[in-house]
């Protein structure tokens, strides 16, 4: 384990979510539903990072996220890394994979879209995984990653 990760206390079993952009840390907390979690959670922000300069980091004890949960992060923090820890050792590294469909996370930018006027789940098709272009399943308007607002 390198020194960088030792800036916060080591984890016995669980998941370390690393390389979170500092301005996205609390969005990641909310997208993973950690607010209501009973787990032992350590949240660090503005930690030194070689890649990002500064970064956020979350350690969740005894919790292992599903691929679906991880893919929720794709629209806000596509470059975060997840380290799965068993008995103080990293046994697996996971990356966020952009899904083909984003469901119930993003709000449509079009005020005249049905999803903004009816109690319903939003659905977006990912048109371009690299540049992060989403197309609303309902009103068919496209939006860029930069313009995305979360529900």
């Amino acid at each position: 384990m390198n020194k960088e990760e030792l800036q916060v206390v080591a984890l016995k079993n669980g998941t370390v979510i690393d390389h979170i952009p500092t301005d996205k840390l609390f969005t990641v907390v909310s997208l993973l539903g950690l607010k209501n979690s009973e787990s032992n959670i350590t949240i660090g922000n503005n930690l030194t990072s070689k890649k990002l300069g500064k970064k956020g980091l979350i350690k969740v004890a005894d919790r292992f996220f599903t691929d679906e949960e991880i893919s929720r992060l794709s629209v806000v923090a596509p470059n975060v890394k997840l380290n799965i820890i068993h008995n103080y050792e990293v046994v697996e590294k996971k990356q966020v994979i952009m899904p083909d469909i984003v469901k119930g996370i993003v709000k449509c930018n079009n005020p005249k879209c049905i999803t903004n006027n009816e109690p319903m789940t939003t659905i977006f098709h990912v048109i371009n995984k690299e540049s992060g272009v989403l197309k609303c399943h309902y009103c068919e308007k496209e939006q860029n990653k930069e313009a995305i607002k979360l529900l």
Partner: protein
Amino acid sequence: MENRSLVTIAEHSKEKILYLLEMAREFEKKPNRKILDGKVVATLFFEPSTRTRLSFETAANRLGARVIGFTDPKATSSSKGETLKDTIIMVGNYADIIVMRHYLEGAARYASEVIDTPIVNAGDGSNQHPSQTMLDLYSIYKTQGTLENLNIYMVGDLKYGRTVHSLLMAMRHFNPTFHFIAPDELKMPEEYKLYCREHGIKYVEHTDFDEKTIAEADILYMTRVQRERFTDLMEYERVKDVYILKNDMLKNTRPNLRILHPLPRVNEIAYDVDENPKAYYFQQAQNGLYARQAILCDVLGITLEDVIEDGKKY
């Protein structure tokens, strides 16, 4: 149950489009039938559109169906705050088909996911209006004898015009050459030009609208330049009379040229054009009846064969 709703024309293959046009042609031969006898068609107009509603209701009536519905959402429970979902489920229990017009984009798609009753989108905000596109295609097919390799000139408001965007996308199967004639403020949006390039569709842009520009046209698709679309009213004053079609501009046009317009027309086609045999916009509206008869049958799973067989009865 397979959902046969018609939400957007973009989902239809070339074969499916030609199949529906063939079915429309059968209905043109015999518009009055009993093929929908015993069926109930609901027309839900959350936004008024007299022309489209009358066309759908006539189509249903001439096929023997009965029609229920509303034309004024103020008089319905959606004005009391009922969700679209609840309204659609309720009507879906009564009717065999729901034809709906809504001011919100994506409303028809959502409705088609809420119930199994087929939905026909009669316009959802500025998004889609597939029955208009079908009647445009039918009009082009009928007047030119083909949809292939045509020179299609679109004139006027190409920025906000829903009908021109849908027509452009539906024509991708048929190797058209488009000419976009519009003022700078209302020119064809980049996303549709990109669509053309991606699909190998040829297009030329013009700002001039005169006799010379349209000499090679097979179809002249006129739209209305609306004052409220302009941010700069000086610009509107400058261009408002430029995109008007006058009869003397048609002298040297091709003999097969036909003029289309989704209607209502205000002043973008001079009244003296109406007498010209190349004017086709009123017949175009009539073609809407046959195109919609085909759509109503198709969403119920009635096939072209059924329609031809049924035609022999009369």
